[in-house]
């Protein structure tokens, strides 16, 4: 089967539609993962053993099982208990939750890297728990972990094709639909691969810049 540039031209607009959804899902998923990760990291530090333990196991479980199955679960099983999510929302929640368990580890390391003296100074300044977190610890912990977080966001981007399994019309799904009706796999799949490679390589450049910009904090 030969490569057909006319066909490429014909399907390009459809694939671009898909790219948009892919990027949207990645961005929303990243935001959610950043929040979920922080929540998990904080919960794991909770003085209540029950909270920290159960959140710990929950995160282990999410991290030890495939995202694809989690997506099926969110999309097809949750409606049984009355939670009916549109495909994109279900996909973003799946991505955010799954990668949240990874970013939680990044947060944990970032928080542990804030020197003990900062906690003590905050206490000596009589700051409460909330103020200590929001004004002292997190502003110091987060910038150094931006590169590590960005790493996971690139990884997440590469897993968005899984959302096609729950009918999200992202790049992979668009390509599959094109392939289904034209019986041509070569062009759509190659283009999908190329899109991913290009965007990933660009994001590597971005990552280098982030590392340069936020890599370390001056004390």
């Amino acid at each position, binding site marked *: 089967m030969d490569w057909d540039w006319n066909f490429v031209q014909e399907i390009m607009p459809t694939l671009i539609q898909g790219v948009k959804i892919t990027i949207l899902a990645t961005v929303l998923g990243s935001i959610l993962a950043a929040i979920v990760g922080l929540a998990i990291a904080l919960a794991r530090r909770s003085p209540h053993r029950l909270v920290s333990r159960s959140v710990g196991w929950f995160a282990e479980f999410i991290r030890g099982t495939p995202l694809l199955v989690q997506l099926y679960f969110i999309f097809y099983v949750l409606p049984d208990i009355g939670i009916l999510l549109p495909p994109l929302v279900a996909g973003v929640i799946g991505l955010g939750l799954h990668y949240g368990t990874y970013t939680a580890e990044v947060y944990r390391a970032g928080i542990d890297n804030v020197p003990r003296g900062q906690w003590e100074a905050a206490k000596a300044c009589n700051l409460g728990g909330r103020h200590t977190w929001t004004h002292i610890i997190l502003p110091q912990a987060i910038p150094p972990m931006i590169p590590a977080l960005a790493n996971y966001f690139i990884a997440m981007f*590469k897993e968005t094709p899984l959302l096609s399994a729950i009918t999200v019309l992202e790049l992979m799904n668009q390509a599959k639909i094109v392939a289904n009706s034209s019986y041509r796999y070569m062009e759509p799949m190659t283009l999908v691969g190329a899109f991913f490679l290009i965007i990933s*390589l660009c994001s590597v450049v971005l990552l280098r810049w982030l590392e340069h910009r936020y890599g370390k904090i001056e004390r």
Partner: protein
Amino acid sequence: MTDWSGYLNLILQGAMVTVQLTVMGAALALVMAFVAGLGRLSRFVAIRCLATAYIEFFRGTSGFVQLFFAYFVLPLAGVTLTPLQAGVLVLGLNVGAYGAEVVRGAIRSIGREQYEACTALNLGRWQGMRHVILPQALLIMLPTFGNNAIELLKATSVVSLISLADLTFQAQVVRSQTGSTLMPFATILLIYFILALIIAWGVRTLERRLARGLDGVRV
């Protein structure tokens, strides 16, 4: 009404396929990790470039897309792989690319003095690598290899989309046979988690065994 034991049997068959994929994929990944990881440290520019290209390509594109490519596009170029071969190949090469960076990092973390001791004892480059550097680097690689193996296990679920009868695929079959969505998905999530725990436990045990005698030298 439903024959649960029969369906459970189907799921267990799927688990066998998943385990088979994980083991074979991990074997390939291990080989590739060392080949490419050592390749990146080679004296020869051509080998370094080749290794870098392999690593960047497989880390830069989505595993899911690679799988579809291997399964539907490669045959058009005359390379026909069975679903199992395609799955093992893609998963192995993909995880191997990540492993290569682990191998490289671990080797580079071994101190200069060990290399100098090798030179002083007149060991050749490869002899020193084989008997002195790699055995020490292996211990450093092991925990990350364990995480990579769990990532591999999770990634096997994607092969269900090229109709390889793994755990996730069998869950889909059971689902269409019984009309129940919750049971098959909950069951396989649990199985995946147990498999992940087994891998984590195995790696920890291996690590402890290898670290014996090294106490006090390395953390």
